[in-house]
């Protein structure tokens, strides 16, 4: 057990350490300019100095990503439930989801900023919700459609009403699919929350801090905030994964 655990963590950790060492050597040996790539030690030093700021920025961006992800996922799941029940709703929603999924944040974020004002977190949360919607909608709908023929026969044999069929078979059967959508969405939610801050508005999050630091040529500091973004993204992903494990453990392997 411990040996397996060690092996599981040791390899990635080793790759990380070796990577950092190479990075450091490269930057020092080749005398790479800081605006191109600061060295890991320089970033670590900056991180030490601005740690409270990185923490608060991570919390601000994290809150946007979380609220946006919850809103987007709930909307997507409800929409998928409707689309699975009614063909006409599906004809309406599926193209909408496709359109939404290719909508560039670059266009969306400034428009929402104008709409809601620049002192609000709402535009950023909406950007996240929009980005999260499509993958969750598509995978949930696929899950709702994938009822095993033997289960369909079973429901008909026992004269289940459509509502009963949804409650006993269709919805529980879609849960693993919902989570595969959520897993994809969790990583993009953080990226979207960070990127949405590039287009003005409140200056409290990771994205604004990264742009501000870069504008002041404080590249190592910018990278310290990037590190915060990476950790935030990983946290979202890991928490979603853990939730998935807990909920779908019953489905068996």
């Amino acid at each position, binding site marked *: 057990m411990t040996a397996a655990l060690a092996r599981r963590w040791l390899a990635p950790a080793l790759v990380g350490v070796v990577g950092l060492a190479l990075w450091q050597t490269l930057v020092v040996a080749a005398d790479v300019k800081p605006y191109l790539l600061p060295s890991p030690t320089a970033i670590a030093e900056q991180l030490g100095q601005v740690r409270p700021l990185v923490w608060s920025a991570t919390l601000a961006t994290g809150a946007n990503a979380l609220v946006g992800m919850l809103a987007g996922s709930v909307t997507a799941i409800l929409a998928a439930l409707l689309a699975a029940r009614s063909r006409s709703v599906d004809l309406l929603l599926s193209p909408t989801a496709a359109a939404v999924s290719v909508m560039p944040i670059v266009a969306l974020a400034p428009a929402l900023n104008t709409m809601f004002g620049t002192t609000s977190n709402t535009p950023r949360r909406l950007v996240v919700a929009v980005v999260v919607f499509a993958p969750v909608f598509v995978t949930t709908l696929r899950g709702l459609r994938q009822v095993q023929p033997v289960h369909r026969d079973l429901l*008909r044999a*026992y*004269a289940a009403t459509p509502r009963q069929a949804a409650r006993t078979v269709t919805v529980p059967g879609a849960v693993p699919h919902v989570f595969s959508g959520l897993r994809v969405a969790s990583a993009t939610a953080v990226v979207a929350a960070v990127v949405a801050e590039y287009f003005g508005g409140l200056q409290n999050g990771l994205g604004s801090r990264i742009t501000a630091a870069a504008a002041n040529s404080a590249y190592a500091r910018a990278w310290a905030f990037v590190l915060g973004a990476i950790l935030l993204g990983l946290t979202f992903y890991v928490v979603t994964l853990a939730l998935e494990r807990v909920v779908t453990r019953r489905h*068996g392997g």
Partner: protein
Amino acid sequence: MSTPATAVDARGVGKVFESRSGTVTALQDVHLTVAAGEFVSLIGPSGCGKSTLLRLVADLEEPTSGELVVFGKPPRAAREAGDYGITFQQAGLLPWRTVSANVQLPLELHGVGRRARAMRAAELLALVGLAEFADAFPHQLSGGMQQRVAIARALAEQPSLLLMDEPFGALDEMTREHLQTELLRISASSGAAVLFVTHSIPEAVYLSDRVVVMSARPGRISGIVDVDLAAAADRTEGLREDAAFFAAVTAVREVLHGAPAPAVRGVDVR
């Protein structure tokens, strides 16, 4: 409650499937009656329409010709009245439900209260020898155990007809023979008629009052063999080595392999 003496009555039933690749006559002019409480097996080569016939009785498909009556009603009415229980080739358990909750499914769909449901499930799981697995999930069970859960589920509402499509098809010989004897005991004690699809001649003979032999393209009944062995409840493993058993096996095999046989033949070697 008095049930009609005839569980299933097929009168010239036919089924044609239309698909893009053409039409398939899955069944043609099938006449068959199953008496209440009778155990009837359907046997025949792959594709001869055994599953189709079972699905027609279950009202999972509709016949394209002829008439089908189940307990004096159209199949749809019988289905909606919960007259039959059904098992499929796959156990078809819901993986996110415990064994007990799977058995309770038909009761739950028909509005039986929680306590009554749990009690009935416990009773049925004891019947199929899985009492200690009530709270397990299906993936923790072997294939044979899953099939037993499916049988328990089919029995949940004390149906007067059991429809079983190769329930033991995927099991090893030992589990299979054990479950056959269990099924005999269960069907005898429940008094339900059974329509049982199988590929195995010994299985059909061991279980049945009558074996219906079918042939393919188009699917039709080529003969019916009466099996006059001991009463279902008295059939035991020893019977498998009985001369009467072998005689019945031979009789089914002859019809199956197209030896000239009358439409109905009896085998009585007692």
